[in-house]
Protein backbone atom coordinates (compact mmCIF):
# COMPACT_ATOMS: atom_id res chain seq x y z
CA UNK A 1 0.00 0.00 0.00
CA UNK A 2 1.03 3.57 -0.63
CA UNK A 3 -0.28 6.68 1.11
CA UNK A 4 -0.10 10.45 0.76
CA UNK A 5 -1.13 12.82 3.54
CA UNK A 6 -4.15 15.00 2.85
CA UNK A 7 -3.80 17.13 5.98
CA UNK A 8 -1.10 17.52 8.62
CA UNK A 9 -1.25 18.79 12.14
CA UNK A 10 0.24 22.33 11.79
CA UNK A 11 2.94 21.70 14.40
CA UNK A 12 4.03 18.61 12.53
CA UNK A 13 4.14 20.45 9.21
CA UNK A 14 6.12 23.36 10.64
CA UNK A 15 8.61 21.14 12.43
CA UNK A 16 7.56 22.29 15.92
CA UNK A 17 6.48 18.72 16.67
CA UNK A 18 8.26 15.52 15.74
CA UNK A 19 5.04 13.59 15.46
CA UNK A 20 1.40 14.44 15.13
CA UNK A 21 -1.91 13.41 13.66
CA UNK A 22 -2.61 13.52 9.97
CA UNK A 23 -5.21 12.35 7.51
CA UNK A 24 -3.72 10.06 4.90
CA UNK A 25 -5.09 8.91 1.56
CA UNK A 26 -4.06 5.28 1.18
CA UNK A 27 -4.07 3.13 -1.93
CA UNK A 28 -4.08 -0.64 -1.66
CA UNK A 29 -4.08 -0.74 -5.44
CA UNK A 30 -0.78 -1.18 -7.19
CA UNK A 31 -2.11 -0.07 -10.54
CA UNK A 32 -2.79 3.44 -9.24
CA UNK A 33 -0.25 6.08 -10.28
CA UNK A 34 1.25 8.17 -7.50
CA UNK A 35 0.48 11.33 -9.48
CA UNK A 36 -3.21 10.41 -9.46
CA UNK A 37 -3.08 9.74 -5.74
CA UNK A 38 -1.45 13.12 -5.17
CA UNK A 39 -4.05 14.83 -7.33
CA UNK A 40 -6.88 13.18 -5.38
CA UNK A 41 -5.27 14.08 -2.04
CA UNK A 42 -5.11 17.72 -3.18
CA UNK A 43 -8.73 17.60 -4.30
CA UNK A 44 -9.82 16.21 -0.93
CA UNK A 45 -7.96 19.01 0.81
CA UNK A 46 -9.82 21.42 -1.47
CA UNK A 47 -13.11 19.90 -0.29
CA UNK A 48 -11.97 20.47 3.30
CA UNK A 49 -11.08 24.09 2.61
CA UNK A 50 -13.88 25.11 0.30
CA UNK A 51 -16.63 22.53 0.65
CA UNK A 52 -18.60 21.42 -2.37
CA UNK A 53 -21.80 22.45 -4.11
CA UNK A 54 -22.38 18.82 -5.10
CA UNK A 55 -24.85 17.21 -2.64
CA UNK A 56 -23.21 13.80 -3.18
CA UNK A 57 -20.09 15.24 -1.52
CA UNK A 58 -21.93 16.12 1.69
CA UNK A 59 -20.83 13.03 3.61
CA UNK A 60 -17.15 13.19 2.67
CA UNK A 61 -17.03 16.98 3.24
CA UNK A 62 -18.55 16.50 6.70
CA UNK A 63 -15.99 13.78 7.46
CA UNK A 64 -13.11 16.00 6.30
CA UNK A 65 -14.38 19.01 8.26
CA UNK A 66 -14.40 16.86 11.39
CA UNK A 67 -10.68 17.45 11.68
CA UNK A 68 -10.17 16.68 15.36
CA UNK A 69 -8.06 13.56 15.77
CA UNK A 70 -9.94 10.95 17.79
CA UNK A 71 -7.66 7.97 17.44
CA UNK A 72 -6.76 5.96 14.40
CA UNK A 73 -9.69 5.24 12.14
CA UNK A 74 -10.68 4.53 8.56
CA UNK A 75 -12.95 6.69 6.40
CA UNK A 76 -14.32 5.26 3.17
CA UNK A 77 -14.35 7.39 0.05
CA UNK A 78 -17.40 7.81 -2.21
CA UNK A 79 -17.35 5.63 -5.33
CA UNK A 80 -16.85 8.62 -7.59
CA UNK A 81 -13.46 9.27 -5.95
CA UNK A 82 -12.42 5.62 -5.69
CA UNK A 83 -13.23 5.01 -9.37
CA UNK A 84 -12.72 1.30 -8.96
CA UNK A 85 -9.48 1.60 -7.03
CA UNK A 86 -9.06 0.31 -3.51
CA UNK A 87 -8.65 3.62 -1.67
CA UNK A 88 -9.50 4.88 1.80
CA UNK A 89 -8.68 7.71 4.19
CA UNK A 90 -6.91 6.89 7.46
CA UNK A 91 -6.34 9.06 10.52
CA UNK A 92 -2.88 8.19 11.79
CA UNK A 93 -0.09 9.53 13.95
CA UNK A 94 2.80 10.26 11.61
CA UNK A 95 6.36 10.53 12.82
CA UNK A 96 8.23 13.19 10.83
CA UNK A 97 11.46 11.26 10.95
CA UNK A 98 9.73 8.35 9.18
CA UNK A 99 8.82 10.47 6.15
CA UNK A 100 10.78 11.33 3.02
CA UNK A 101 10.38 14.41 0.85
CA UNK A 102 9.42 13.88 -2.77
CA UNK A 103 9.72 15.87 -5.99
CA UNK A 104 5.89 15.93 -6.25
CA UNK A 105 5.20 19.47 -5.14
CA UNK A 106 5.36 19.72 -1.37
CA UNK A 107 4.16 16.15 -0.86
CA UNK A 108 5.81 13.93 1.70
CA UNK A 109 5.88 10.20 1.19
CA UNK A 110 5.57 7.69 4.01
CA UNK A 111 5.28 3.94 4.33
CA UNK A 112 2.76 2.00 6.37
CA UNK A 113 1.68 -1.57 6.86
CA UNK A 114 -1.89 -2.66 6.49
CA UNK A 115 -4.23 -4.96 4.64
CA UNK A 116 -7.09 -3.87 2.42
CA UNK A 117 -9.80 -4.54 4.99
CA UNK A 118 -7.96 -3.12 8.00
CA UNK A 119 -9.55 -0.36 10.07
CA UNK A 120 -6.17 1.22 10.69
CA UNK A 121 -2.69 1.21 9.25
CA UNK A 122 0.67 1.19 10.99
CA UNK A 123 3.16 3.82 9.76
CA UNK A 124 6.74 2.59 9.41
CA UNK A 125 9.95 4.36 8.32
CA UNK A 126 9.90 5.15 4.61
CA UNK A 127 13.67 5.47 4.19
CA UNK A 128 14.37 1.72 3.86
CA UNK A 129 12.03 1.68 0.87
CA UNK A 130 13.28 4.85 -0.80
CA UNK A 131 15.00 2.97 -3.63
CA UNK A 132 11.73 1.35 -4.68
CA UNK A 133 9.90 4.67 -4.71
CA UNK A 134 12.26 6.43 -7.12
CA UNK A 135 12.65 9.46 -4.85
Amino acid at each position, binding site marked *: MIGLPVMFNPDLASGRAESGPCLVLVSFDRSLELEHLKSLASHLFGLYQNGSADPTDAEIVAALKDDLFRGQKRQELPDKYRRGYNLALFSVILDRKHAIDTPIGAAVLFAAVGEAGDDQVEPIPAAPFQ*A*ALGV
Partner: protein
Amino acid sequence: MRVDYALLDRLFDEWMLTDEGKKLHAQKATSDLGMTVMVFLLGVILICTIYYAVSGFKCIVGIFTGEAFETTISGAYRSNPNRFVR
Protein backbone atom coordinates in the same frame (compact mmCIF):
# COMPACT_ATOMS: atom_id res chain seq x y z
CA MET B 1 7.44 8.76 -10.82
CA ARG B 2 6.66 5.04 -10.59
CA VAL B 3 6.86 2.57 -7.74
CA ASP B 4 8.94 -0.56 -8.31
CA TYR B 5 6.67 -2.95 -6.42
CA ALA B 6 8.93 -5.97 -6.90
CA LEU B 7 11.77 -4.08 -5.25
CA LEU B 8 9.39 -2.70 -2.63
CA ASP B 9 8.30 -6.23 -1.70
CA ARG B 10 11.92 -7.37 -1.42
CA LEU B 11 12.89 -4.36 0.72
CA PHE B 12 9.84 -4.94 2.92
CA ASP B 13 10.77 -8.61 3.41
CA GLU B 14 14.28 -7.50 4.41
CA TRP B 15 12.88 -4.81 6.73
CA MET B 16 10.66 -7.36 8.46
CA LEU B 17 13.83 -9.19 9.51
CA THR B 18 15.08 -6.10 11.38
CA ASP B 19 14.30 -5.55 15.06
CA GLU B 20 11.70 -2.94 14.13
CA GLY B 21 10.03 -5.31 11.66
CA LYS B 22 9.98 -8.16 14.16
CA LYS B 23 8.42 -5.86 16.75
CA LEU B 24 5.67 -4.87 14.30
CA HIS B 25 5.07 -8.51 13.41
CA ALA B 26 4.66 -9.38 17.10
CA GLN B 27 2.20 -6.50 17.57
CA LYS B 28 0.20 -7.60 14.54
CA ALA B 29 0.07 -11.20 15.75
CA THR B 30 -1.25 -10.02 19.13
CA SER B 31 -3.83 -7.83 17.41
CA ASP B 32 -5.02 -10.73 15.23
CA LEU B 33 -5.42 -12.90 18.31
CA GLY B 34 -7.51 -10.17 19.94
CA MET B 35 -9.76 -10.03 16.88
CA THR B 36 -10.19 -13.80 16.91
CA VAL B 37 -11.28 -13.66 20.54
CA MET B 38 -13.72 -10.85 19.81
CA VAL B 39 -15.34 -12.75 16.93
CA PHE B 40 -15.70 -15.75 19.17
CA LEU B 41 -17.48 -13.69 21.84
CA LEU B 42 -19.81 -12.18 19.25
CA GLY B 43 -20.66 -15.71 18.16
CA VAL B 44 -21.63 -16.65 21.70
CA ILE B 45 -23.82 -13.57 22.05
CA LEU B 46 -25.48 -14.31 18.69
CA ILE B 47 -26.34 -17.86 19.71
CA CYS B 48 -27.80 -16.64 22.99
CA THR B 49 -29.77 -13.92 21.21
CA ILE B 50 -31.35 -16.49 18.90
CA TYR B 51 -32.21 -18.59 21.91
CA TYR B 52 -33.69 -15.52 23.61
CA ALA B 53 -35.81 -14.84 20.54
CA VAL B 54 -37.38 -18.29 20.59
CA SER B 55 -37.24 -19.28 24.24
CA GLY B 56 -37.73 -16.26 26.43
CA PHE B 57 -35.60 -14.22 28.76
CA LYS B 58 -33.60 -16.78 30.65
CA CYS B 59 -30.51 -16.83 28.41
CA ILE B 60 -30.02 -13.05 28.30
CA VAL B 61 -30.55 -12.78 32.05
CA GLY B 62 -27.96 -15.52 32.43
CA ILE B 63 -25.35 -13.48 30.56
CA PHE B 64 -25.91 -10.22 32.39
CA THR B 65 -26.10 -11.74 35.84
CA GLY B 66 -22.84 -13.58 35.30
CA GLU B 67 -24.38 -17.05 35.18
CA ALA B 68 -22.05 -19.53 33.54
CA PHE B 69 -22.60 -20.04 29.81
CA GLU B 70 -22.51 -23.81 30.32
CA THR B 71 -25.49 -23.62 32.64
CA THR B 72 -27.40 -21.43 30.21
CA ILE B 73 -26.75 -23.65 27.21
CA SER B 74 -27.46 -26.85 29.08
CA GLY B 75 -30.71 -25.22 30.16
CA ALA B 76 -31.58 -24.89 26.49
CA TYR B 77 -30.84 -28.56 25.98
CA ARG B 78 -33.07 -29.46 28.91
CA SER B 79 -36.01 -27.44 27.62
CA ASN B 80 -35.68 -28.75 24.05
CA PRO B 81 -32.88 -31.24 23.40
CA ASN B 82 -33.24 -30.93 19.64
CA ARG B 83 -33.00 -27.14 19.40
CA PHE B 84 -29.27 -26.97 18.57
CA VAL B 85 -28.79 -30.35 17.00
CA ARG B 86 -31.58 -30.51 14.45
